[in-house]
């Protein structure tokens, strides 16, 4: 199989370039990450992040043939040759396929991704009914791989001001949680022209999410909550 991989080492290269690789491999049921690791045996200077190799940790997010995804759960047989691999778009490149996710996590932290509840903790746990718990489905599964936010043109333009789809999905995850008591503060925090409303419903986030989550729907739900609050 033929590969074209983005290479950049800031210590030795003046500019990034695409390097061609060939690999003698039977696609079978192998995943893209298997092939990249074999390529790394050919050329050990090729750098990438990876960990769980089963789509749970979210480390090996990259731009695969122009589309963000996780290398470890992308079947080789689904890819057109040459397979073009680039780092996630819109974030500073540290080296090869490794990007600096500082801005992404800064936005994630800005929505306070934890339960805010000042009631004295009960002896066992804070209970929810099965129906209340069901509201968290499709929200809590996010692995923060960054595929969605780095596919979002609004995030490319304003990464310092727009929270991005990943952060907003998590914002709604806590707005939808009956155990959280900071609903009003959370809505206040998002009610400005940038943090939430830079979303123009482009829906690249929904298109690329490797966990098949729907940040656009979550953003719509946050807007609904804001409208309900004022009418």
């Amino acid at each position, binding site marked *: 199989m033929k590969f074209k991989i983005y290479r950049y080492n800031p210590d030795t290269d003046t500019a990034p370039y695409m390097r061609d690789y060939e690999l003698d491999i039977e696609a079978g049921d192998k995943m893209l990450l298997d092939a990249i690791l074999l390529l790394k045996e050919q050329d050990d200077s090729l750098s990438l992040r990876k960990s769980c190799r089963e789509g749970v940790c979210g480390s090996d997010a990259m731009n695969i043939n122009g589309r963000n995804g996780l290398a470890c759960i992308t079947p080789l047989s689904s890819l057109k040759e040459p397979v073009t691999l680039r780092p996630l778009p819109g974030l500073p490149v540290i080296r090869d396929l490794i990007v600096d996710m500082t801005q992404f996590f800064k936005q994630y932290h800005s929505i306070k991704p934890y339960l805010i509840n000042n009631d004295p903790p009960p002896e066992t746990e804070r209970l929810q009914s099965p129906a209340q718990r069901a509201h968290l489905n499709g929200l809590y599964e996010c692995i923060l791989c960054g595929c969605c936010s780095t596919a979002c043109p609004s995030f490319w333009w*304003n990464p310092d001001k727009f929270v991005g789809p990943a952060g907003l999905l998590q914002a709604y995850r806590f707005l939808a949680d009956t155990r959280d008591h900071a609903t009003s503060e959370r809505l*206040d*925090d998002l*009610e*400005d*022209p940038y*943090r939430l*409303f830079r979303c*123009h419903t482009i829906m690249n986030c929904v298109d690329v999410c490797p966990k098949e989550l729907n940040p656009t729907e979550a953003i719509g739900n946050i807007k609904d909550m804001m*409208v309900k609050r004022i009418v």
Partner: protein
Amino acid sequence: MVNRVVTGAHYGLRDWLIQRITAVVMALYSVVLAGYLLLQPHLDYDAWTGLFSSQPMRTFTLLFLLSVFYHAWIGIRDIVMDYVKPAGVRLVIHVLVILVSLLYAIWAVQILWGF
């Protein structure tokens, strides 16, 4: 001055909602006007001025035009926010767009009620 990233101006929801509502007004007006044009086989100057001589049509047209101007103001501001970074230049463009829209609104009243 400290160069902090500032967010938190509380007009995000208001403008987003107004843009949706003005869009509905524009859609309704477009359907009404398109319907009129399709059902009017002999469209001449008399028919056209006749249409705009009725008060409800003039009011609806003004409502439509005000919706266009407000909708456009929010849209243009969004584009300027993305592409024009210096705050001073941005403010000047914002003010110009507002003034031009106001001018158009006054002009629209003159045209609609001037005949």
